[in-house]
Protein backbone atom coordinates (compact mmCIF):
# COMPACT_ATOMS: atom_id res chain seq x y z
CA UNK A 1 0.00 0.00 0.00
CA UNK A 2 2.86 2.39 0.80
CA UNK A 3 4.26 1.92 -2.67
CA UNK A 4 0.93 3.02 -4.14
CA UNK A 5 1.10 6.19 -2.02
CA UNK A 6 4.68 6.74 -3.17
CA UNK A 7 3.56 6.54 -6.75
CA UNK A 8 0.32 8.44 -6.26
CA UNK A 9 1.52 11.60 -8.11
CA UNK A 10 2.11 9.52 -11.25
CA UNK A 11 -1.21 7.70 -10.85
CA UNK A 12 -3.10 10.96 -10.34
CA UNK A 13 -1.38 12.51 -13.35
CA UNK A 14 -2.38 9.46 -15.39
CA UNK A 15 -5.96 9.70 -14.15
CA UNK A 16 -6.01 13.34 -15.22
CA UNK A 17 -4.76 12.42 -18.68
CA UNK A 18 -7.39 9.68 -18.96
CA UNK A 19 -10.21 12.03 -17.95
CA UNK A 20 -9.01 14.79 -20.29
CA UNK A 21 -8.69 12.29 -23.13
CA UNK A 22 -12.18 10.98 -22.42
CA UNK A 23 -13.62 14.50 -22.53
CA UNK A 24 -11.83 15.28 -25.82
CA UNK A 25 -13.14 12.02 -27.31
CA UNK A 26 -16.63 12.86 -26.08
CA UNK A 27 -16.53 16.19 -27.94
CA UNK A 28 -15.42 14.46 -31.16
CA UNK A 29 -17.97 11.69 -30.80
CA UNK A 30 -20.87 14.02 -30.08
CA UNK A 31 -20.11 16.25 -33.05
CA UNK A 32 -19.67 13.24 -35.34
CA UNK A 33 -22.79 11.62 -33.91
CA UNK A 34 -24.94 14.70 -34.49
CA UNK A 35 -23.62 15.16 -38.03
CA UNK A 36 -24.05 11.49 -38.93
CA UNK A 37 -27.54 11.34 -37.37
CA UNK A 38 -28.49 14.37 -39.42
CA UNK A 39 -27.03 12.64 -42.49
CA UNK A 40 -28.98 9.45 -41.80
CA UNK A 41 -32.23 11.34 -41.36
CA UNK A 42 -31.71 13.66 -44.29
CA UNK A 43 -33.49 12.98 -47.53
CA UNK A 44 -30.31 13.24 -49.56
CA UNK A 45 -29.12 9.78 -50.66
CA UNK A 46 -25.43 10.75 -50.42
CA UNK A 47 -25.75 11.90 -46.82
CA UNK A 48 -27.45 8.76 -45.64
CA UNK A 49 -25.06 6.55 -47.61
CA UNK A 50 -21.97 8.20 -46.11
CA UNK A 51 -23.44 8.02 -42.61
CA UNK A 52 -24.44 4.38 -43.08
CA UNK A 53 -21.01 3.31 -44.30
CA UNK A 54 -19.45 5.15 -41.37
CA UNK A 55 -21.49 3.23 -38.80
CA UNK A 56 -20.97 -0.08 -40.63
CA UNK A 57 -17.22 0.45 -40.76
CA UNK A 58 -17.03 1.16 -37.05
CA UNK A 59 -19.16 -1.86 -36.22
CA UNK A 60 -16.81 -4.02 -38.28
CA UNK A 61 -13.37 -2.93 -37.13
CA UNK A 62 -12.15 -3.25 -33.52
CA UNK A 63 -11.15 0.01 -31.86
CA UNK A 64 -7.54 -0.95 -31.24
CA UNK A 65 -6.97 -1.88 -34.89
CA UNK A 66 -8.46 1.43 -35.94
CA UNK A 67 -6.24 3.23 -33.46
CA UNK A 68 -3.15 1.55 -34.89
CA UNK A 69 -4.25 2.44 -38.42
CA UNK A 70 -4.80 6.07 -37.46
CA UNK A 71 -1.67 6.38 -35.36
CA UNK A 72 0.72 4.79 -37.85
CA UNK A 73 -1.16 5.15 -41.10
CA UNK A 74 -2.85 8.52 -41.03
CA UNK A 75 0.37 10.39 -40.37
CA UNK A 76 2.03 8.77 -43.39
CA UNK A 77 -1.04 9.47 -45.51
CA UNK A 78 -1.27 13.11 -44.45
CA UNK A 79 2.41 13.71 -45.08
CA UNK A 80 2.21 11.96 -48.41
CA UNK A 81 -0.70 14.15 -49.49
CA UNK A 82 1.01 17.26 -48.08
CA UNK A 83 4.21 16.43 -49.94
CA UNK A 84 2.36 15.75 -53.15
CA UNK A 85 0.20 18.86 -53.15
CA UNK A 86 2.56 21.13 -51.22
CA UNK A 87 -0.35 22.46 -49.16
CA UNK A 88 1.10 21.72 -45.72
CA UNK A 89 4.40 20.79 -44.16
CA UNK A 90 5.37 17.87 -41.97
CA UNK A 91 2.58 16.80 -39.64
CA UNK A 92 3.15 14.68 -36.59
CA UNK A 93 0.24 12.89 -34.94
CA UNK A 94 1.07 12.20 -31.33
CA UNK A 95 -0.41 9.42 -29.26
CA UNK A 96 -2.87 11.73 -27.52
CA UNK A 97 -4.38 13.02 -30.75
CA UNK A 98 -4.47 9.55 -32.31
CA UNK A 99 -6.11 8.25 -29.14
CA UNK A 100 -8.92 10.75 -28.80
CA UNK A 101 -9.59 10.97 -32.53
CA UNK A 102 -9.97 7.19 -32.77
CA UNK A 103 -12.10 6.85 -29.66
CA UNK A 104 -14.23 9.80 -30.73
CA UNK A 105 -14.60 8.25 -34.16
CA UNK A 106 -15.66 4.88 -32.73
CA UNK A 107 -18.08 6.20 -30.11
CA UNK A 108 -19.40 8.69 -32.67
CA UNK A 109 -20.95 5.76 -34.52
CA UNK A 110 -22.81 4.69 -31.38
CA UNK A 111 -23.80 8.30 -30.71
CA UNK A 112 -25.27 8.42 -34.22
CA UNK A 113 -27.73 5.69 -33.36
CA UNK A 114 -28.50 7.35 -30.02
CA UNK A 115 -29.32 10.71 -31.55
CA UNK A 116 -31.15 9.22 -34.51
CA UNK A 117 -33.39 7.17 -32.26
CA UNK A 118 -34.04 10.14 -29.98
CA UNK A 119 -34.92 12.49 -32.83
CA UNK A 120 -37.29 9.90 -34.32
CA UNK A 121 -38.96 9.42 -30.94
CA UNK A 122 -39.91 13.09 -30.47
CA UNK A 123 -43.69 13.35 -30.84
CA UNK A 124 -44.35 15.02 -34.15
CA UNK A 125 -47.44 16.81 -32.81
CA UNK A 126 -45.37 18.86 -30.36
CA UNK A 127 -43.26 20.32 -33.16
CA UNK A 128 -46.42 21.04 -35.13
CA UNK A 129 -47.87 22.72 -32.08
CA UNK A 130 -44.78 24.89 -31.90
CA UNK A 131 -45.22 25.88 -35.53
CA UNK A 132 -48.89 26.61 -34.88
CA UNK A 133 -47.93 28.93 -32.03
CA UNK A 134 -45.78 30.84 -34.48
CA UNK A 135 -42.40 29.89 -33.02
CA UNK A 136 -39.33 30.41 -35.14
CA UNK A 137 -37.16 27.43 -36.10
CA UNK A 138 -34.49 28.19 -33.52
CA UNK A 139 -37.10 28.71 -30.83
CA UNK A 140 -38.70 25.36 -31.65
CA UNK A 141 -35.31 23.71 -31.40
CA UNK A 142 -34.46 25.40 -28.11
CA UNK A 143 -37.80 25.03 -26.36
CA UNK A 144 -39.25 21.83 -27.79
CA UNK A 145 -36.75 19.62 -29.60
CA UNK A 146 -33.76 20.04 -27.28
CA UNK A 147 -35.47 19.11 -23.97
CA UNK A 148 -37.02 16.06 -25.63
CA UNK A 149 -33.75 15.13 -27.28
CA UNK A 150 -31.83 15.20 -24.01
CA UNK A 151 -34.51 13.22 -22.22
CA UNK A 152 -34.79 10.55 -24.88
CA UNK A 153 -31.08 10.29 -25.64
CA UNK A 154 -29.78 10.23 -22.06
CA UNK A 155 -30.11 6.51 -21.19
CA UNK A 156 -28.19 5.38 -24.23
CA UNK A 157 -25.85 8.38 -23.97
CA UNK A 158 -24.91 7.23 -20.48
CA UNK A 159 -24.17 3.81 -21.88
CA UNK A 160 -21.98 5.24 -24.64
CA UNK A 161 -20.10 7.41 -22.18
CA UNK A 162 -19.33 4.38 -20.01
CA UNK A 163 -18.09 2.45 -23.05
CA UNK A 164 -15.98 5.47 -24.02
CA UNK A 165 -14.46 5.73 -20.57
CA UNK A 166 -13.47 2.07 -20.63
CA UNK A 167 -12.09 2.32 -24.16
CA UNK A 168 -9.62 5.00 -23.06
CA UNK A 169 -7.56 2.21 -21.45
CA UNK A 170 -6.49 1.16 -24.94
CA UNK A 171 -4.40 4.31 -25.57
CA UNK A 172 -1.76 2.86 -23.25
CA UNK A 173 -1.07 0.30 -25.98
CA UNK A 174 0.19 2.98 -28.39
CA UNK A 175 2.29 4.48 -25.61
CA UNK A 176 0.15 7.36 -24.34
CA UNK A 177 1.04 7.95 -20.68
CA UNK A 178 -2.46 7.53 -19.27
CA UNK A 179 -3.64 5.89 -16.07
CA UNK A 180 -2.98 2.32 -17.25
CA UNK A 181 0.47 3.19 -18.61
CA UNK A 182 1.62 5.03 -15.48
CA UNK A 183 0.35 2.29 -13.19
CA UNK A 184 1.92 -0.39 -15.35
CA UNK A 185 5.37 1.24 -15.26
CA UNK A 186 5.05 1.80 -11.51
CA UNK A 187 3.97 -1.79 -10.97
CA UNK A 188 6.74 -3.16 -13.11
CA UNK A 189 9.48 -1.23 -11.34
CA UNK A 190 8.21 -2.20 -7.88
CA UNK A 191 7.30 -5.76 -8.97
CA UNK A 192 3.80 -5.24 -7.59
CA UNK A 193 1.74 -5.27 -10.76
CA UNK A 194 -1.30 -6.85 -9.12
CA UNK A 195 -1.57 -4.07 -6.57
CA UNK A 196 -1.24 -1.36 -9.18
CA UNK A 197 -3.59 -2.96 -11.68
CA UNK A 198 -6.12 -3.38 -8.89
CA UNK A 199 -5.80 0.31 -8.08
CA UNK A 200 -6.46 1.08 -11.75
CA UNK A 201 -9.58 -1.09 -11.68
CA UNK A 202 -10.83 0.72 -8.57
CA UNK A 203 -10.18 4.13 -10.12
CA UNK A 204 -12.09 3.13 -13.25
CA UNK A 205 -14.89 1.78 -11.08
CA UNK A 206 -15.09 5.09 -9.20
CA UNK A 207 -15.19 7.01 -12.47
CA UNK A 208 -17.95 4.87 -13.96
CA UNK A 209 -19.98 4.87 -10.75
CA UNK A 210 -19.66 8.66 -10.40
CA UNK A 211 -20.74 9.29 -13.98
CA UNK A 212 -23.66 6.91 -13.61
CA UNK A 213 -24.87 8.77 -10.53
CA UNK A 214 -24.37 12.20 -12.09
CA UNK A 215 -26.09 11.31 -15.34
CA UNK A 216 -28.87 9.64 -13.40
CA UNK A 217 -29.53 12.94 -11.66
CA UNK A 218 -29.60 14.77 -15.00
CA UNK A 219 -32.01 12.15 -16.31
CA UNK A 220 -34.31 12.71 -13.35
CA UNK A 221 -34.15 16.46 -13.91
CA UNK A 222 -35.17 16.12 -17.55
CA UNK A 223 -37.89 13.58 -16.81
CA UNK A 224 -39.79 15.94 -14.54
CA UNK A 225 -43.32 16.07 -15.83
CA UNK A 226 -43.20 12.85 -17.82
CA UNK A 227 -45.79 10.30 -16.83
CA UNK A 228 -44.29 6.98 -15.89
CA UNK A 229 -45.90 3.79 -17.06
Amino acid sequence: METVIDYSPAILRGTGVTIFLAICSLMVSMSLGLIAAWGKLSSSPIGSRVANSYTTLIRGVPDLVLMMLIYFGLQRLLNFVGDYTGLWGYIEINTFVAGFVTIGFVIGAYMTETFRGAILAIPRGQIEAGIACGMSKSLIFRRIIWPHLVRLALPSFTNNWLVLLKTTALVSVIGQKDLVYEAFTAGRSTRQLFTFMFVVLIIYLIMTAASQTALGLVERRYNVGVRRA
Partner: protein
Amino acid sequence: MEFIIEYFTLILGDGNWKFWLEGISLTLMFVSLSLLIGGVLSIPLAIARANRHPIFNPMVWSFTYFFRGTPLLVQTYLLYYGLPQFDFVKDSFMWPMLREATWCALIAFTLNTAAYTTEIFRGAIEAVPHGEIEAAKACGMSPFKRMRRIILPSALRISLPAYSNEVIFMLHGSVILGVLPIIDIFGAAKTINSRYYVSFEGFIPCAILYMILVFGITRIFRMLEKRYHAHLRPRTS
Protein backbone atom coordinates in the same frame (compact mmCIF):
# COMPACT_ATOMS: atom_id res chain seq x y z
CA MET B 1 0.03 -2.37 -60.34
CA GLU B 2 3.53 -3.19 -59.19
CA PHE B 3 2.69 -1.59 -55.89
CA ILE B 4 -0.27 -3.89 -55.38
CA ILE B 5 1.77 -7.02 -56.15
CA GLU B 6 4.46 -5.82 -53.79
CA TYR B 7 1.89 -5.29 -51.07
CA PHE B 8 0.40 -8.74 -51.46
CA THR B 9 3.81 -10.40 -51.35
CA LEU B 10 4.47 -8.47 -48.16
CA ILE B 11 1.36 -9.60 -46.35
CA LEU B 12 0.98 -13.11 -47.79
CA GLY B 13 4.35 -14.18 -49.18
CA ASP B 14 7.23 -15.83 -47.35
CA GLY B 15 4.87 -18.04 -45.36
CA ASN B 16 3.03 -15.07 -43.92
CA TRP B 17 -0.37 -16.44 -44.88
CA LYS B 18 0.14 -19.01 -42.15
CA PHE B 19 0.12 -16.23 -39.53
CA TRP B 20 -3.28 -15.07 -40.75
CA LEU B 21 -4.75 -18.58 -40.70
CA GLU B 22 -3.39 -19.18 -37.23
CA GLY B 23 -4.69 -15.79 -36.14
CA ILE B 24 -8.20 -16.38 -37.44
CA SER B 25 -8.47 -19.80 -35.82
CA LEU B 26 -7.11 -18.51 -32.50
CA THR B 27 -9.43 -15.50 -32.45
CA LEU B 28 -12.44 -17.66 -33.27
CA MET B 29 -11.44 -20.28 -30.72
CA PHE B 30 -10.99 -17.75 -27.92
CA VAL B 31 -14.17 -15.86 -28.67
CA SER B 32 -16.33 -18.96 -28.99
CA LEU B 33 -14.86 -20.67 -25.92
CA SER B 34 -15.27 -17.65 -23.68
CA LEU B 35 -18.77 -17.02 -25.01
CA LEU B 36 -19.73 -20.63 -24.45
CA ILE B 37 -18.39 -20.89 -20.91
CA GLY B 38 -19.51 -17.37 -20.03
CA GLY B 39 -22.97 -18.04 -21.42
CA VAL B 40 -23.39 -21.25 -19.42
CA LEU B 41 -22.18 -19.47 -16.27
CA SER B 42 -24.48 -16.52 -16.79
CA ILE B 43 -27.78 -18.44 -16.88
CA PRO B 44 -27.85 -19.41 -13.16
CA LEU B 45 -26.46 -15.98 -12.26
CA ALA B 46 -29.21 -14.27 -14.26
CA ILE B 47 -31.88 -16.44 -12.61
CA ALA B 48 -30.53 -15.53 -9.17
CA ARG B 49 -30.61 -11.89 -10.13
CA ALA B 50 -34.06 -11.93 -11.69
CA ASN B 51 -35.56 -13.83 -8.74
CA ARG B 52 -34.00 -11.29 -6.33
CA HIS B 53 -32.45 -14.08 -4.27
CA PRO B 54 -31.63 -12.43 -0.90
CA ILE B 55 -28.05 -13.76 -0.70
CA PHE B 56 -26.98 -14.36 -4.29
CA ASN B 57 -28.52 -11.27 -5.88
CA PRO B 58 -26.18 -8.76 -4.16
CA MET B 59 -23.21 -11.03 -4.80
CA VAL B 60 -23.98 -11.40 -8.48
CA TRP B 61 -24.76 -7.70 -8.71
CA SER B 62 -21.34 -6.77 -7.36
CA PHE B 63 -19.69 -9.25 -9.73
CA THR B 64 -21.40 -7.79 -12.79
CA TYR B 65 -20.91 -4.22 -11.57
CA PHE B 66 -17.19 -4.75 -11.14
CA PHE B 67 -16.65 -6.43 -14.50
CA ARG B 68 -18.91 -4.09 -16.43
CA GLY B 69 -17.44 -0.99 -14.85
CA THR B 70 -13.78 -1.64 -15.67
CA PRO B 71 -11.87 -2.10 -18.92
CA LEU B 72 -11.25 -5.63 -20.18
CA LEU B 73 -7.62 -4.69 -20.93
CA VAL B 74 -6.90 -3.96 -17.28
CA GLN B 75 -8.74 -7.11 -16.16
CA THR B 76 -6.53 -9.17 -18.44
CA TYR B 77 -3.39 -7.35 -17.27
CA LEU B 78 -4.38 -7.98 -13.66
CA LEU B 79 -4.48 -11.72 -14.25
CA TYR B 80 -1.53 -12.11 -16.58
CA TYR B 81 0.97 -9.60 -15.17
CA GLY B 82 -0.46 -9.27 -11.68
CA LEU B 83 -0.84 -12.83 -10.39
CA PRO B 84 2.92 -13.66 -10.37
CA GLN B 85 3.26 -11.03 -7.62
CA PHE B 86 1.98 -13.59 -5.10
CA ASP B 87 4.16 -16.45 -4.00
CA PHE B 88 1.20 -18.64 -3.11
CA VAL B 89 0.03 -18.47 -6.72
CA LYS B 90 3.49 -19.44 -7.91
CA ASP B 91 3.59 -22.37 -5.49
CA SER B 92 0.10 -23.63 -6.25
CA PHE B 93 -0.70 -26.48 -8.62
CA MET B 94 -2.47 -23.94 -10.86
CA TRP B 95 0.75 -22.12 -11.69
CA PRO B 96 1.62 -24.02 -14.90
CA MET B 97 -1.79 -22.89 -16.16
CA LEU B 98 -1.84 -19.34 -14.82
CA ARG B 99 1.64 -18.70 -16.17
CA GLU B 100 0.33 -18.95 -19.70
CA ALA B 101 -1.09 -15.88 -21.38
CA THR B 102 -3.71 -18.04 -23.09
CA TRP B 103 -5.30 -19.24 -19.84
CA CYS B 104 -5.24 -15.82 -18.21
CA ALA B 105 -6.85 -14.27 -21.26
CA LEU B 106 -9.46 -17.01 -21.43
CA ILE B 107 -10.37 -16.58 -17.74
CA ALA B 108 -10.58 -12.79 -18.05
CA PHE B 109 -12.67 -12.96 -21.23
CA THR B 110 -15.01 -15.56 -19.78
CA LEU B 111 -15.66 -13.62 -16.59
CA ASN B 112 -16.14 -10.40 -18.56
CA THR B 113 -18.64 -11.85 -21.01
CA ALA B 114 -20.38 -13.73 -18.18
CA ALA B 115 -20.98 -10.39 -16.44
CA TYR B 116 -22.44 -8.73 -19.53
CA THR B 117 -24.50 -11.77 -20.52
CA THR B 118 -25.91 -12.08 -17.00
CA GLU B 119 -27.38 -8.60 -17.24
CA ILE B 120 -28.73 -9.27 -20.74
CA PHE B 121 -30.42 -12.51 -19.61
CA ARG B 122 -31.73 -10.89 -16.45
CA GLY B 123 -33.41 -8.20 -18.51
CA ALA B 124 -34.83 -10.85 -20.81
CA ILE B 125 -36.15 -13.00 -17.96
CA GLU B 126 -37.87 -9.96 -16.48
CA ALA B 127 -39.35 -9.19 -19.90
CA VAL B 128 -41.07 -12.58 -20.28
CA PRO B 129 -44.80 -11.83 -20.56
CA HIS B 130 -46.67 -12.42 -17.29
CA GLY B 131 -49.39 -14.34 -19.08
CA GLU B 132 -46.98 -17.08 -20.11
CA ILE B 133 -45.83 -17.58 -16.53
CA GLU B 134 -49.39 -17.50 -15.21
CA ALA B 135 -50.44 -20.06 -17.80
CA ALA B 136 -47.59 -22.30 -16.68
CA LYS B 137 -48.72 -21.92 -13.07
CA ALA B 138 -52.29 -22.69 -14.05
CA CYS B 139 -51.09 -25.89 -15.70
CA GLY B 140 -49.58 -26.89 -12.37
CA MET B 141 -45.92 -26.74 -13.35
CA SER B 142 -43.34 -26.72 -10.56
CA PRO B 143 -41.07 -23.65 -10.37
CA PHE B 144 -38.20 -25.64 -11.88
CA LYS B 145 -40.26 -26.97 -14.73
CA ARG B 146 -41.69 -23.51 -15.32
CA MET B 147 -38.18 -22.11 -15.60
CA ARG B 148 -37.00 -24.87 -17.90
CA ARG B 149 -40.01 -25.11 -20.17
CA ILE B 150 -41.45 -21.60 -20.28
CA ILE B 151 -39.28 -18.83 -18.91
CA LEU B 152 -35.82 -19.75 -20.22
CA PRO B 153 -36.83 -20.53 -23.81
CA SER B 154 -38.81 -17.32 -23.97
CA ALA B 155 -36.04 -15.27 -22.35
CA LEU B 156 -33.34 -16.64 -24.64
CA ARG B 157 -35.43 -15.63 -27.62
CA ILE B 158 -35.98 -12.14 -26.26
CA SER B 159 -32.27 -11.68 -25.57
CA LEU B 160 -31.13 -12.58 -29.11
CA PRO B 161 -30.65 -9.03 -30.49
CA ALA B 162 -28.83 -7.79 -27.38
CA TYR B 163 -26.74 -10.95 -27.28
CA SER B 164 -25.60 -10.51 -30.88
CA ASN B 165 -24.20 -7.13 -29.84
CA GLU B 166 -22.35 -8.78 -26.98
CA VAL B 167 -20.83 -11.33 -29.38
CA ILE B 168 -19.56 -8.54 -31.61
CA PHE B 169 -18.20 -6.63 -28.60
CA MET B 170 -16.41 -9.79 -27.53
CA LEU B 171 -14.86 -10.15 -30.98
CA HIS B 172 -13.73 -6.53 -30.79
CA GLY B 173 -12.41 -7.11 -27.29
CA SER B 174 -10.45 -10.17 -28.35
CA VAL B 175 -7.92 -7.80 -29.97
CA ILE B 176 -6.41 -7.68 -26.50
CA LEU B 177 -5.02 -11.16 -27.18
CA GLY B 178 -2.64 -9.55 -29.65
CA VAL B 179 -1.41 -7.16 -26.97
CA LEU B 180 -0.41 -10.17 -24.88
CA PRO B 181 2.08 -12.55 -26.51
CA ILE B 182 -0.62 -14.47 -28.39
CA ILE B 183 -0.94 -14.58 -32.18
CA ASP B 184 -4.56 -13.78 -32.92
CA ILE B 185 -5.51 -11.76 -36.03
CA PHE B 186 -4.16 -8.58 -34.47
CA GLY B 187 -1.06 -10.42 -33.28
CA ALA B 188 -0.50 -11.72 -36.82
CA ALA B 189 -0.60 -8.15 -38.13
CA LYS B 190 1.88 -7.07 -35.48
CA THR B 191 4.18 -10.00 -36.23
CA ILE B 192 4.24 -9.22 -39.94
CA ASN B 193 4.83 -5.54 -39.27
CA SER B 194 7.80 -6.22 -37.05
CA ARG B 195 9.14 -8.84 -39.44
CA TYR B 196 9.61 -6.28 -42.20
CA TYR B 197 10.03 -3.12 -40.14
CA VAL B 198 6.88 -1.57 -41.57
CA SER B 199 4.53 0.50 -39.45
CA PHE B 200 0.93 -0.21 -40.40
CA GLU B 201 0.73 -2.33 -43.58
CA GLY B 202 -0.31 -5.45 -41.68
CA PHE B 203 -3.24 -3.71 -39.99
CA ILE B 204 -5.18 -3.26 -43.23
CA PRO B 205 -5.85 -6.99 -43.87
CA CYS B 206 -6.38 -7.30 -40.12
CA ALA B 207 -9.17 -4.72 -40.25
CA ILE B 208 -10.71 -6.40 -43.29
CA LEU B 209 -10.63 -9.84 -41.64
CA TYR B 210 -12.38 -8.51 -38.52
CA MET B 211 -14.97 -6.86 -40.71
CA ILE B 212 -15.68 -10.11 -42.53
CA LEU B 213 -16.07 -11.91 -39.20
CA VAL B 214 -18.45 -9.24 -37.89
CA PHE B 215 -20.59 -9.45 -41.02
CA GLY B 216 -20.65 -13.22 -40.72
CA ILE B 217 -21.79 -13.01 -37.11
CA THR B 218 -24.44 -10.43 -37.98
CA ARG B 219 -25.74 -12.67 -40.74
CA ILE B 220 -25.88 -15.73 -38.46
CA PHE B 221 -27.82 -13.80 -35.84
CA ARG B 222 -30.18 -12.41 -38.44
CA MET B 223 -30.94 -15.98 -39.50
CA LEU B 224 -31.44 -17.04 -35.90
CA GLU B 225 -33.76 -14.12 -35.28
CA LYS B 226 -35.74 -14.97 -38.38
CA ARG B 227 -36.16 -18.52 -37.10
CA TYR B 228 -36.79 -17.87 -33.41
CA HIS B 229 -38.72 -14.62 -33.71
CA ALA B 230 -41.01 -16.01 -36.41
CA HIS B 231 -44.01 -15.77 -34.09
CA LEU B 232 -43.30 -12.09 -33.39
CA ARG B 233 -43.02 -10.88 -36.96
CA PRO B 234 -45.97 -9.08 -38.48
CA ARG B 235 -47.93 -11.30 -40.77
CA THR B 236 -47.21 -10.84 -44.44
CA SER B 237 -50.21 -11.32 -46.60
